[in-house]
């Protein structure tokens, strides 16, 4: 708004109406991209979910048949549960770890800056490469445990349902904690020093300062980071696909993987699109929920409150 006002005052030629005509056009590049790569595919997915298509022949309009097939499939609640588990567990592991590392890295000491660079490395690797590497390390016959003769490491990591789930959570966390730690590091550095100085004068210890100043001040960072984590892990695909292909059995068959298997491997594009729609709805709902969580009490952690 302030930019528009500035222009209106600075240029006498620009009548009121002209700002109203130009402004929408400024949004067009973003809109075009958004429409082409988000809206149209989304509408396409929604339309395809009411059809049966084997990707080869005609697209047949079959109404709710694909929806009925997916919703009555016991695989769906299972896939939802697996997705929920991955989302919840990876959030529960990543958030505390990222906050701690972020706070630690926010310090300006030289060795911390060095560590920050090192911590960042996993984020530079592609998920597929990470998955292949871990798969080789965890191989029960040729992996790390067998090679070093350490029996503790010699588990059937990816062949036992609960262990496989644990491994997926671990690797996801290992890969993404650096990113979220970076977010928190930035968040911590923005907290005004004056808050800590005041607390110090009042005789607060470091632990007390962490819980009463740092954490509350990080609220918005936490919401951003959590939204990224949760919405991101909903569509988690590549790592699981390379690591376990949803196995053993269907122990790590999350929604995104289920969608791929139905659409690409089983030639049921209609059903895959139903799952796609479900994913979009769940993702939207979660994102909205997180926004609400952040918006309800906006006075809680504004910097101006310092």
């Amino acid at each position, binding site marked *: 708004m302030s930019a528009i006002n500035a222009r209106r005052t600075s240029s006498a030629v620009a009548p*009121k*109406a002209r*700002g*109203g*005509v130009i*402004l*929408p*056009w400024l*949004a*067009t590049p973003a*809109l*075009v991209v958004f*429409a*082409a790569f988000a*809206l*149209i595919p989304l*509408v396409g997915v929604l339309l395809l979910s009411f059809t049966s298509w*084997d*990707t*080869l*022949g*005609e697209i047949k309009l079959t109404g709710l048949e694909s929806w009925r097939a997916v919703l009555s499939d016991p695989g769906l609640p299972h896939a939802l549960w697996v997705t929920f588990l991955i989302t919840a567990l990876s959030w529960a592991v990543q958030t505390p770890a990222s906050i701690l590392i972020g706070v630690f890295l926010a310090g300006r000491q030289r060795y911390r800056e060095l560590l920050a660079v090192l911590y960042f490395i996993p984020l530079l690797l592609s998920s597929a490469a990470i998955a292949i590497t871990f*798969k080789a390390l*965890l*191989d*029960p*016959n*040729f992996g790390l445990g067998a090679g070093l003769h350490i029996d503790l490491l010699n588990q*059937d*990591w*990816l*062949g036992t*349902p609960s262990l*496989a789930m644990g491994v997926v959570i671990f690797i996801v966390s290992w890969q993404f904690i650096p990113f979220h730690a970076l977010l928190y590091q930035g968040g911590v550095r923005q907290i005004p020093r004056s808050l800590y100085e005041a607390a110090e004068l009042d005789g607060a210890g470091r632990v007390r300062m962490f819980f009463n100043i740092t954490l509350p001040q990080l609220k918005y960072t936490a919401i951003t980071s959590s939204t990224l984590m949760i919405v991101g892990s909903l569509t988690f695909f590549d790592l699981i696909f390379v690591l*376990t*292909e949803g*196995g*053993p*059995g*269907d122990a790590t068959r999350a929604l995104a993987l289920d969608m791929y*298997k*139905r659409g*690409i*491997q*089983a*030639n*049921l594009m209609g059903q895959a699109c139903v799952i796609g729609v479900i994913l979009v709805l769940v993702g939207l709902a979660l994102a909205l929920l997180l926004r609400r969580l952040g918006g309800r009490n906006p006075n809680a952690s504004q910097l101006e409150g310092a």
Partner: protein
Amino acid sequence: MESRTSSRRTFLTLSMGLPLGAALAACGTSGPAPSGGGTGGGAAGGNGGGGGKATYWFLQGPPGEAPRTASVQRFNKANASGQIAITTIQNDAYKTKIKTAIGANQAPTIIWGWGGGGLRSYVQAGQVEDLTSWFGENAAVKDRLFPGAFGAATIDGKIYAMPCETVQPIVLFYNKKVFEKVGAQPPQSYGDILDLVKKFNAAGIAPFSLAGQSRWTNMMWLEFLFDRIGGPEVFQAVFDGEKDAWNNPASIEALTKMQELIKANAFIKGFSSVTADSNADQALLYTGKAAMMLHGSWSYGIQQAQGGDIVPSGGLGWMNFPGVDGGKGDPTNTVGNPGQYLSISSKATPEQKEIAKKFFATGVLDDQEQKDWVGTGGVPIVKGSDKLFAGSKDAEFLNFIYGVASNAKVFAQSWDQALSPTAAEVLLDNIAKLFQLSITPQQFATNMNAVIGK
């Protein structure tokens, strides 16, 4: 404020209009853009309606790429007017890519495939040519090939593909050195297998290597148990779409025996996280961590390339899967890939179709190509190709495969290739669960009955 509302309206119409226009434009060019060829091997890709050149996509990498490429090159040299342009694509990428291309009417002239259920889905979509009458006119082309190879090329009594390349039955491989160490003999019956499981487990060696994560590897076990216990009719009934065909008592017995074998630790520890793509299952056999392995005949080539001295030193043994006592199936029966298949896209131009047919008649499996395949350790699906084995260092194995293929009463096609892609995915999924012991044989049968005929 007045102007704000009107501007919001223009804004909205703008935003609504754009996607609509783009959507309409998108409808004009159906499906993925003809990116088809370029990416794969650089050659001109799938241009269904293109000019005089026929196009041909096939799998990249050894052992098949060299013989395939050489045969096209010879054909092109001999036929200046009708050339074939090739594009090579990696195995897994190929499966998706060819499907997308066919669905988008951008298929290559010559479609390489595995026949069976995949071919049936092309046929149902009207995407491949009916070659029945062509084979009628060119009986010589048909008669020189293994008759068993035509089963997977035939859909509802009509031939839609030219069988080509090699026959690949599934073979029970074993490590002779490990057998010597333990003092064991190769199994003559299923009972022997059970005894060997105990014996090898006692010696601290895994009886069988298995790449369970790949799922189709598990399936090979079921294919043989079903055949040996109930005969080929059991799966044939599934294939023919008979209701509740998986409830056959022989089917339940085979599934039960399968789970007993798993419970008896017949397979390497952690088998459900071993993959076939990485050849980890092959490594288990040639490093002696496992004594036996049920695998496709192409495993021989892998053992030879990666297994050190196991093949040259005569350490690798092989046999057909033994019979099950009291079972109905003939122990000469086998299962696997009766051949590979070439179809002609119905969207190709008449000239392209002619080039393809000429290639089928004169280029495919000519004398040199047969020799090339023998050189890779494969058995061409041509009658009498065993004459070429003389002098080959792999003669013993090649003769064995030739014998298995030509003596088999029934050479069944691998289940996942025979069934439609939809049913095959459900099958592989349930096999993974069966091997995980998370479903019972009856649950397996019930789940599978639900997709019969789909």
